[in-house]
């Protein structure tokens, strides 16, 4: 069985909807299409029942109860609601927020906005392996800290943070602990009890569910409160007004149920595939570096730098294979990946990075095809690269005064 093109290896960006999820969603468009808030007729009751079932399914993946799940339009909204909501509610206790430089923009930009209205934010650095150090969190906590936000797994490098230890440190000082768990839930075990999480952001489209629906876990014991950011009909116990995306929620529930059930087998399979990809490439291509901890990493995730070859050019060369890159050329702002830079990856290596995100639907045939293609294309691009030429003739590139550098 040969690999079918195009091949999708960008599962950190989004995932294909599992056909079983789509099947679960379909009745809620044309048959059971009621508004879950319509209390007075069977259309509404059916929709509500489906929503409540999904609530339990999503809660189960993180060890929570359905009553602690608030539906949102996605993780970006959940991140906004968690941080703005908690900061606003607990404002009289303090104005200090702690987060990390490697967080998703939905967290970082939310914090930047809060800085404009009088909150102080500490952006913690990360270790070279890409992870947040619990000691760094402990050192940054003050009597005025009210919210700490640290992600479970990073979207760019796939590294997993020691959130349980961080949670312990945060709760000892009484601040609210928010975890953006988008990339990790459904792939690695996660439990709100062991991680001491107060608020957790979740997203359907990262676990083979549809786009446009997410959730925020809000702890009930002890009770955590948030000020809503959307006002209206008072849905979701007043925390998030707006008619529920019933088909999306049903899909999210099904996706969560499948992920929980299949995680043990799937994570083993993906780890094996990822290692096949990594070792296959390393056997054929010299001068590569894996970015971020290999040990504390999501099973399907690989972020690799290919020295002397620019990331966007390599992506263009990997025709019919969907991956992404930390190169400046791929970002609208022309800045190289801030996550890689925060890990201490030299700028020129950030430009050469490629992110592979393997998922449920990737096969060994696809991995073997990609290994071969990567080896061929890196060779071709190195033949075109002045830096490769210099390195081959023994020039120390770091010692050169570049005309383009100030």
């Amino acid at each position, binding site marked *: 069985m040969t690999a079918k093109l195009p091949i999708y290896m960008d599962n950190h960006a989004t995932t294909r909807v599992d056909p079983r999820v789509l099947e679960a969603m379909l009745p809620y468009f044309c048959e059971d299409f009621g508004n879950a808030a319509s209390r007075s007729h069977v259309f509404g009751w059916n929709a509500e029942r489906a929503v409540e079932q999904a609530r339990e399914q999503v809660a189960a993946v993180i060890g929570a109860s359905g009553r602690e799940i608030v539906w949102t339009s996605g993780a970006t909204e959940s991140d906004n609601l968690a941080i703005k909501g908690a900061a606003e509610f607990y404002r009289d206790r303090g104005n200090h927020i702690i987060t990390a430089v490697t967080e998703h923009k939905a967290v970082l930009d939310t914090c930047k906005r809060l800085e404009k209205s009088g909150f102080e934010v500490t952006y913690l650095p990360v270790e070279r392996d890409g992870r947040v150090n619990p000691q760094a969190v402990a050192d940054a906590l003050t009597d005025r800290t009210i919210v700490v936000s640290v992600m479970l797994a990073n979207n760019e490098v796939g590294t997993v943070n020691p959130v349980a230890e961080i949670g312990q440190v945060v709760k000892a000082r009484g601040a609210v602990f928010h975890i953006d768990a988008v990339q990790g839930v459904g792939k690695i075990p996660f439990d709100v009890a062991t991680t001491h999480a107060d608020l957790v952001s979740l997203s359907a489209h990262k676990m083979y569910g549809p786009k446009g629906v997410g959730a925020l876990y809000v702890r009930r014991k002890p009770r955590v409160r948030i000020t809503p950011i959307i006002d209206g009909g008072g849905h979701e116990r007043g925390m998030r007004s707006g008619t529920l995306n019933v088909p999306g929620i049903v899909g999210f529930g099904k996706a969560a149920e499948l992920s929980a059930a299949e995680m043990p087998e799937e994570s083993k399979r993906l780890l094996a595939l990822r290692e096949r990809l990594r070792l296959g490439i390393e056997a054929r291509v010299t001068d590569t570096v894996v970015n971020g901890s290999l040990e504390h990493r999501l099973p399907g995730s690989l972020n690799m730098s290919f020295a*002397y*070859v620019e*990331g966007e050019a390599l992506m263009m060369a990997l025709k019919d294979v969907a991956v992404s890159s930390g190169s400046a*050329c*791929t970002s609208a702002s*022309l800045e190289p990946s801030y996550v890689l830079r925060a890990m201490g990856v030299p700028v*020129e290596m950030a430009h050469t990075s490629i992110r592979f995100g393997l998922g449920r639907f990737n096969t060994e045939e696809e991995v073997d095809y990609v290994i071969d293609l990567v080896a061929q294309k890196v060779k071709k691009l190195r033949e075109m690269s002045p830096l490769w030429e210099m390195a081959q003739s023994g020039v120390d590139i770091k010692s050169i005064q570049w*005309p383009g*550098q100030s």
Partner: protein
Amino acid sequence: MAYSGKVIDHYENPRNVGSLDKEAPNVGTGLVGAPACGDVMKLQIQVSDAGVIEDAKFKTFGCGSAIASSSLATEWIKGMTLEQAMSVRNTQIVQELNLPPVKIHCSVLAEDAIKSAIADYRRKQRGSQAQPGLGGG
């Protein structure tokens, strides 16, 4: 962003990838950009006694648009006089390759690479003319 057909063509079928002898007296080597910026272009020209560019080669570390810009530059300047090559403008490259605004800087670097190669060639010519032992004495 979808790549323009011309950019892809220059990558798939690169013209003039390679190196000329840096030490040769009739070769000018231009090196512009910096690895930290994600863009480095090496452009070399081989110039006849009559001041015409007989051959041009390039190597580029950079995105598809950077590779295409430098490839196109070497294609154009072959057969030009040095003066003609000096007047190649990045805007012409942008137009030919349909570069979007975010990639315009790639074309600017290619124009700089041409000028840098010519400057290096001219420096070499001036240097050889000033050598002791030539002329009377």
